[in-house]
C-alpha cells in the first residue's frame, strides 16, 4: 500500500472505504437482527392487545396502545386471576409440565447413554459380528436420516398393544431415540479431544476403566455434555409430529396445545399470542443465558 499520511489523498480514500464498509456491516447486522426479533416482538406485544389494537395495527406498547392482560387472562395467568382457581390455567400448566418432564427426561437419558457409547467408541475397538468401530458409529449416526414418519405408524400400533399410547413414557422413549445420534455426534468429538494419558495415569493409580471414566473423564467432558443436553432439550421441547400422533389427552405437550387452538372459531389473536409466548419463552431464556453452550454443541461436529 502507498505510504499513508494524515490528510493525504490516499489516506482519505482508505478512510472513506473503511467507513463505508463499517456502515454496510452494521446495516446488514441490524437488518437481520430486526428480521429475527420482529416476530418475537410481535407475538409478545400482541398478547397484550385488545381486538381494536390488532385491527388498527398498533405496534408499540404504551405509545400506540395500552397493554392489557386480556390475552393472558384467557390462560388464567394475569395478575387479577392468579389467585383464583382457573381451569384454563390448570390445563395450560398440565401441558407445560408434560413438555418439561418429557424433554428433560428424554435429554437426560440420551446424554447418559450417548456419552457412554461415544466414550466407548472413542477409546476401545469393538467387534460385534462384522461390525467394527466405524460401522457402529455409522449405525448410530445413520439414525439421523431416519424420517419420523417411517416410525410413526409402527409406533402407533406398537404403543397401542403396549398400552403406552398417550403416556409420557412412550414419548420419552421416542424423543430419546430422536436425539441420541446428535448426542453421540457431539460427545464423540468431545472425548476425542481429551488425551488418553489422563486415563492411563488413573489406571496406573488403581482405578478401573469405569472409575477412570466417572472420576477423571466425566468432569472434563461436562461442558460438552451440557451442550448436548441443551441441544436435545430444545429439540424435544419443540417436537410436534410424534406428540400429535401419539398423544390425545393425558400426555399432550405444549406444541400440540398451540397447534390445536388454531382451528377453533376463527383466530383469538390475544390468547393465541399469549399461548405462543408462553411456549417459546422458556427456550428464549435458555438461549439468552446458555448461548455459549448451544454454540459449542453445534460447532462440535462441524470443525474437526
Amino acid at each position: 500500500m502507498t505510504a499513508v499520511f494524515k490528510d493525504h489523498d490516499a489516506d482519505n480514500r482508505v478512510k472513506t472505504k473503511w467507513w463505508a464498509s463499517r456502515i454496510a456491516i452494521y446495516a446488514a447486522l441490524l437488518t437481520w437482527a430486526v428480521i429475527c426479533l420482529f416476530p418475537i416482538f410481535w407475538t409478545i406485544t400482541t398478547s397484550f392487545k385488545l381486538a381494536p389494537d390488532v385491527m388498527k395495527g398498533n405496534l408499540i406498547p404504551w405509545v400506540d396502545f395500552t397493554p392489557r392482560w386480556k390475552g393472558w387472562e384467557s390462560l388464567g395467568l394475569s395478575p387479577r386471576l392468579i389467585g383464583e382457581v382457573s381451569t384454563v390455567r390448570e390445563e395450560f400448566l398440565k401441558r407445560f409440565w408434560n413438555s418439561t418432564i418429557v424433554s428433560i427426561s428424554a435429554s437426560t437419558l440420551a446424554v447418559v447413554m450417548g456419552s457412554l457409547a461415544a466414550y466407548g467408541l472413542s477409546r476401545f475397538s469393538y467387534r460385534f459380528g462384522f461390525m467394527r468401530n466405524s460401522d457402529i458409529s455409522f449405525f448410530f449416526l445413520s439414525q439421523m436420516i431416519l424420517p419420523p414418519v417411517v416410525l410413526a405408524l409402527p409406533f402407533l400400533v406398537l404403543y397401542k398393544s403396549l398400552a403406552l399410547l398417550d403416556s409420557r413414557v412412550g414419548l420419552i422413549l421416542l424423543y430419546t431415540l430422536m436425539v441420541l445420534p446428535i448426542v453421540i455426534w457431539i460427545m464423540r468429538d468431545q472425548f476425542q479431544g481429551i488425551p488418553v494419558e489422563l486415563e492411563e495415569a488413573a489406571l496406573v493409580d488403581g482405578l478401573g476403566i469405569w472409575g477412570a471414566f466417572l472420576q477423571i473423564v466425566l468432569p472434563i467432558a461436562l461442558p460438552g455434555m451440557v451442550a448436548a443436553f441443551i441441544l436435545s432439550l430444545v429439540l424435544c421441547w419443540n417436537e410436534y409430529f410424534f406428540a400429535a400422533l401419539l398423544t390425545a389427552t393425558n400426555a399432550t405437550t405444549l406444541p400440540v396445545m398451540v397447534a390445536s387452538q388454531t382451528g377453533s372459531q376463527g383466530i383469538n389473536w390475544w390468547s393465541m399470542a399469549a399461548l405462543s409466548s408462553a411456549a417459546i419463552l422458556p427456550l428464549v431464556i435458555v438461549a439468552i443465558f446458555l448461548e455459549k453452550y448451544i454454540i459449542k454443541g453445534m460447532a462440535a461436529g462441524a470443525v474437526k
Partner: protein
Amino acid sequence: MTAPEGDLLHTVTADNIPEARRRFGKAIVWGSALLVVALAVWQMAYETGRVASGFETWRPVLYAYMLWATALCAAQVIVNGEKGKRTLFVLPAALFVISLVVFPLLFALYISFTDWNLASPNGPQPNGWDNMREMWNDGFYWNALKNMVYYVLAVSVEYVIAFGLALLLNAQIRARKFFRVVFLLPLMLSPVAVSWMIGKSMLEIRFGPISRVLREMGVEPSFFGSPEIARFWIMAMDAWTFIPFMMIMLLAGLQALPREVIEASKVDGATGWQSFREVIFPLMLPVSVTAIVIRIIFKLKLADIIINVTSGGPGGATDSVTSFIFREYRDRSNVGYGTLLAMVYLVLIVIFVTLLLKVVSRWMERPA
C-alpha cells in the same frame, strides 16, 4: 475417519473367570430370553383366542424384554470380565436403538403390504402389491416428492445467507455477543409456534403487519393463494428457523481457520473479495459441506410448519412427503398405505443421502 487398530486405552487384565460364573451368566441371558418368548407366545395365543386367560396388554412382554436387556448387560461383565466392562459402554445405547428402530422397521415393512385401515373392523389383511400400484397412480405423492426437491434446493439460498451472516459475525464488530444471541433465537422456537407467529398472524391477510406493509406499497397481499408464493412462504419460514443452525456451524469453521494464511493473503495484496474466493471459501469447503448435508437431512423431515399453516394447500402445492402421510393417516386412518409411502420415502432418502455423501466426500478433505 481412521479407525485405530486395537484399543486407544490399553488395559492389562488377568481375568480368571471360573466356569461356574460363566455358566451363571449365560443362564440368566437364556433364561430371561426364554421368558420373553414364552410370554409373547402365550399372549399371542390369548389374542388369537387359543388360550382362555392372558394379559390385557403386551406390557408384561415389554417388562420381560427389559429384564432380558438388563441380564444381557450384566452377563457381559459376569462372563467376559474386564472385556465385558468395555462392551458395557456401547451396549445399552446399541440395544436401545436396535429395539426401537429395527423391530418397528420390520413391523412397518409388514404393515406396508397390508390394506390396514384403522377404521375398518377386520384388522390387517395382506394385499400383496396393491399399495405399490396405488402409490404408482397417486399423483399427490409424486407431487409431494417433487416439492421435496424444491425444498431441498432452497437449502442453497439458506447456505448463502448463513455464510454471509457468519462472515458478518466474524468481522471486527462491537456487541458481537448481542448479535450472536439475537441471530440464534429463531432456532429456539418451535415450528408450531413459528407457524402461528408468522404463518397465521404476521401473514394474516387483513391485519397482519406484512400484509399492511404490502398494501402500503400498493400490492394486494395474497400469501397462500397461488402455489409458487405459498411454497415460497413455507420455505421462508423454515429458513428463518434453521438459518442460525448453519450460521453457527459456519461461524465455528471461520473461527478455526488458520489466521496466518489469511494474513498472508492480505500481505500479498489480495482484496477482500479475492481473499474470500481464493483462500477462505476453499478452506471452508469441508465445514460448508458438513453443514449443508446436515441441513438437507433435517430438511427431509420438514412437516410441522406445513401441517399447521397450509395443510399442504393450495392443491397440494406445499405438501412435503411427511405432511402428506400425516394427513393420510389423520384424515383417512389409512395405516397400511401410509406406511408403504413412508417406507418408499425412506428407501429414496437412503439412496439420495448415500449418493450425496459419495459426491461430496472429495470436498470433505481440506485442500492442501
